[in-house]
């Protein structure tokens, strides 16, 4: 079953962008990931569903080099997450429901501070382009703490694109967003999925399904379902309920 799935993908797609082989992670004596296998090809959009505590965030944290896996291997853009962290960090962007902004700095300073670490040509132009594109250029000199929640969220997402990452990791980006924020995020992601490889975890079935090219369901640290086609909403519900054994594990 798995071989079939991989072969088909190989024929359809170009290079492998993200690869996990028997990925393991333990926190103390508590397994969070047990033998996760995943492939994402260049330009694909993968949505990972699963109950709370299934290990979705941990998986993304490993791909984005926040944490080290306990076993197995993981490659991002051909680089090993154990040894080639810096190369990976140059290529990825990470969005979570935390804004990760400095409240006391202005919008401009927040963006510029991060941008200065990457070799961005014409950093100033790039910063103002980004602020223009999210309609915050007029507020660029205001401290982030004075911006509304939606603006901050926009800024946080926009900041991720300062170095034009080719791979994006989104960890529950929809949680905490109101309707407007969510639809804005969806439209940004719609645009991004043209030329970027994206992995997203979410509980929002509607957005998760409409954006993605393929899905995976994680439960108790294992991939219990993965499919190259995206199912319809009704199909998905049946699949999810049949795959996921635990809904309320601690």
């Amino acid at each position, binding site marked *: 079953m798995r071989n079939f799935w991989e072969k088909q993908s190989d024929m359809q797609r170009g290079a492998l962008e993200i690869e996990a082989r028997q990925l393991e992670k*333990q*926190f*103390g*004596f*508590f397994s969070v990931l047990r033998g996760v296998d995943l492939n994402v090809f260049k330009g694909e959009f993968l949505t990972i569903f699963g109950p709370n505590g299934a290990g979705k965030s941990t998986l993304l944290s490993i791909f984005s080099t926040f944490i*080290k896996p*306990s076993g197995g291997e993981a490659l991002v853009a051909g680089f090993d997450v154990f040894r080639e962290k810096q190369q990976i960090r140059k290529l990825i962007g990470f969005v979570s429901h935390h804004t990760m902004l400095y409240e006391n700095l202005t919008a401009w300073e927040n963006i510029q501070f991060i941008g200065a670490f990457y070799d961005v040509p014409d950093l100033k132009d790039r910063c103002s382009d980004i602020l223009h594109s999210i309609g915050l250029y007029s507020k660029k000199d205001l401290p982030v703490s004075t911006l509304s929640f939606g603006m901050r969220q926009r800024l946080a997402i926009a900041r991720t694109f300062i170095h034009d990452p080719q791979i994006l990791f989104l960890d529950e980006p929809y949680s905490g967003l109101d309707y407007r924020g969510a639809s804005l995020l969806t439209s940004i992601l719609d645009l991004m999925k043209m030329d970027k490889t994206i992995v997203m975890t979410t509980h929002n079935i509607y957005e998760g399904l409409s954006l993605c090219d393929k899905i995976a369901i994680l439960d108790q640290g294992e991939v219990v379902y993965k499919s190259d086609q995206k199912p319809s909403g009704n199909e998905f519900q049946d699949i999810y309920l049949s795959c996921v054994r635990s809904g309320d594990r601690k």
Partner: protein
Amino acid sequence: MKIAETDPFSFKEMRKALFFLTFALMVLGTWMTFFYAPTEVVMGHVQRIFYFHMGTVWAATVAFTVVFVASIYYLVKETAKWDTLAYCSAEIGMLLLTLTIITGSIWAKPVWGTWWTWDPQLTTTFILWVLYAVYLLLRSGAGGRGKKARYSAIFAIVAFVDLPVVYISARIKRGISPVVFGPGGGGIDPAMMQTLLVVLLGFTLLFILLLRERIRIMNMETALYTRGR
């Protein structure tokens, strides 16, 4: 299972052998302390507590070194067994060091006329005791097992590097150091030396015995804890 029962060097047998050897050496050491070693000329009988004092401080030092080495291994390998080793060793080290301080005080009162003095060695011992205490406190307050293990390993490494510096800086103010067996303490009676060596060996074995037992209990705890999941 069968192999374990018939094998003469199985864990069970080793455990028994270690237990009896430790017991024998500790009894022998105690006997030598009181009846074999001659009475010290200046200090009198109170000097005899020094054998146990040396035994505990030696074993506590070994324990501290074990914590240090196991902590480095944990950071590199991230396997739980190294953390278990470090933690168990720290607990026993804390116990031994407490005994060191108590026996030292008992010895110091009649000899120096005070229970405590801020002599370089005493200062360093005291700080080592505090470091052990903070290490154990850090473990109880760190959070999850992984974080607990990593944080305490880092603290143990920094503490181990720190301790010699503490000793050197404490020596800036010269104190009354208890040179009993070292150079400057004059010639040492061979019987005293033999007693000391037996006691040191006894305490080393006691430390190993306690460490193994503590690790066993810890592993059982872990097994119980994970079975509930």
